[in-house]
């Protein structure tokens, strides 16, 4: 066996010391079954063929790795490329995961799906997958996020999903995960929980990473084909960490490639003002896994803030915690204001409106690109498009729509 950083998790779901399963006993058997069913599916060529076919003809993959010429000129440094996850059906990377997990749901003979959502992108991607395969779908969404993301709520309902408002706690993503877990406690025999990021108990962090790895695999091949070599830097935003994990994982053993995860810096480093779990958090347990968490000294989860509902999460995937401690990936934070700048710069210079989540990765690239030489290659994971964010951005810029 190699000791490669990519050779994780082990059979107990350990990424080094991180990950594992910290959930009520009621869920344990289902997680064991899911793990073995997923292992079987992974080895099954028909499952893979079906997934590939859907990714190609339904999701629209492969999406381009696009040379952002004007953004590159604007920064005056290395060449900036965009991995266009925004061009997927539903407009974000989330669908790579929901299609895979929906296929798995059917393999397990389950007919009902639950999901949590923050910005609504994962909720929409789950509703889409369920409509496509005729599965019942219930999406848990914080009351506060329902108010902020009306368009996505309407879309989910159009596709036949039931959107349940979560009124407990902070009424955002973290509480939506709690509520979905509670539903699963009583429905686990007939229901699959499609977690939307690389979080939760084993096997979710591994499985979601695997389904999202199509991003990094395509990027790696496209970069080699278009430029003849690997990128020097790859930048992705980190909420729970799924687009970044999918982007980074295929590059983990390419030591020359710098990997940078960008968290939500919110209004600043004071507790409650940001969602930069890896920058300011400490080791702990949240939502069934062990990793970095924003908690107080008693282990109570702290409130978080971000301009972006999709990054507004006090935990992070265990594999990111592992990559942080091993030093393989660097993590940094971008503030609300910087993200808003990135959003506008991308729109003006490239004619692409990025999701406010992805704008965090864009903003970091804008910061570092000018310090790189013209031969360097920088890839940004453009995890989603920004249609869902235009109301909020207009409000923040004091403009009418």
């Amino acid at each position: 066996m190699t000791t490669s950083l990519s050779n994780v998790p082990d059979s107990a779901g350990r990424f080094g010391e991180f990950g594992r399963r910290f959930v009520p006993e009621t869920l344990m058997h289902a997680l064991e079954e899911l793990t073995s069913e997923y292992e079987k599916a992974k080895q099954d060529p028909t499952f893979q063929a079906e997934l590939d076919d859907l990714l190609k003809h339904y999701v629209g993959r492969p999406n381009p790795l696009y040379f952002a010429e004007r953004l590159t000129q604007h920064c005056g440094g290395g060449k900036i490329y965009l991995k266009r996850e925004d061009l997927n059906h539903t407009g974000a990377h989330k669908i790579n995961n929901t299609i895979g997990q929906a296929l798995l749901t059917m393999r397990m003979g389950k007919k009902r799906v639950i999901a949590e959502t923050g910005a609504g992108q994962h909720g929409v991607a789950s509703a889409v997958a369920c409509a496509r395969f005729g599965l019942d779908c219930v999406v848990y969404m914080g009351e506060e996020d329902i108010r902020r993301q009306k368009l996505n709520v309407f879309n989910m309902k159009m596709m036949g999903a039931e959107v349940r408002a979560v009124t407990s706690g902070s009424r955002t993503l973290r509480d939506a995960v709690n509520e979905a877990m509670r539903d699963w406690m009583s429905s686990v025999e007939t229901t699959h929980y499609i977690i939307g990021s690389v979080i939760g108990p084993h096997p979710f962090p591994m499985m979601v990473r695997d389904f999202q790895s199509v991003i990094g695999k395509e990027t790696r091949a496209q970069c080699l084909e278009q430029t003849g070599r690997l990128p020097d830097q790859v930048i992705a935003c980190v909420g729970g960490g799924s687009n970044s994990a999918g982007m980074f994982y295929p590059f983990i053993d390419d030591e020359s490639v710098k990997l940078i995860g960008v968290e939500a810096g919110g209004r600043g480093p004071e507790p409650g003002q940001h969602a930069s779990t890896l920058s300011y958090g400490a080791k702990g347990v949240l939502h069934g896994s062990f990793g970095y968490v924003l908690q107080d000294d008693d282990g109570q989860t702290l409130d978080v803030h971000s301009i972006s509902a999709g990054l507004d999460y006090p935990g992070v995937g265990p594999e990111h915690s592992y990559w942080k401690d091993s030093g393989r990936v660097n993590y940094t934070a971008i503030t609300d204001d910087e993200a808003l700048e990135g959003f506008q710069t991308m729109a003006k210079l490239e004619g692409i409106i990025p999701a406010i989540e992805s704008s965090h990765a864009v903003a970091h690239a804008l910061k570092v690109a000018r310090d790189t030489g013209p031969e360097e290659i920088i890839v940004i994971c453009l995890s989603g498009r920004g249609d869902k964010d235009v109301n909020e951005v207009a409000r923040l810029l004091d403009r009418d729509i």
Partner: protein
Amino acid sequence: MAFMPFITAGDPDLDTTVAVLKELAHRGVDLIEVGFPYSDPIADGPVIQESYTRALNNGFHVHDLFEALKTLSADPSITLPPLVGMVSYAIIFRYGSDKFLNEAKAAGFSGLIVPDLPGDEAQELAEKTKAVKLDLVQLVSPLTPENRTKRIVQVASGFIYCISVAGTTGVRDELPPELTAHLESLRSLTDLPLAVGFGISNPNHVNTLRGKADGFIIGSAIVKQFAAFSDPAQNRDAVLKAIGDYAGEMAAATKG
């Protein structure tokens, strides 16, 4: 059969918690489960969630609870039944497991239930609890297959917490008919006492369990009454008495 009421610590404050513990002790309960408020309790239904939220909003801290209990345990005028803490592993880990266990022991706890630490992950904590002579109670759910149960009972001590239904805490009208068979199969796998929890609220439920379980836990039906402590229109002593009367009734039902 042993009657084990569950209460939330710090709802609405620790003075009240101490008063409730004294009241329950007078009513002849056999063991008290003390719930540590947690911000993200995924195994709990709305009643206990809301109670936890009230306690946290009022500034509950783990260390303050340990101090309050230490004082109470040292009070010669009161004999408490055994106390078992119900506490998320998120809290134990962050507090520091050694520190947590030592302080819990000094506060008078005789054991812990850690609902999000399944048997598979419990080895390390089980060794530590053993070293300080605290029991580590393990939970078994109706969905736990026999091969898992066998592994779980190996690391368990004190009693086995048998979850009556697949789901979260909260009162239910009926206990599931499969429960009897589940208890019988558990009985064949362990010599530890079997305590049933989740959903229980009335003497009828207790009668169904008679002869099959060694104890039962009542949580939401008691904690539901805690909301009244935060209601300015209600008299604290009257609320205490109502909780005590209910506990007395259930304690009597176990003997009945």
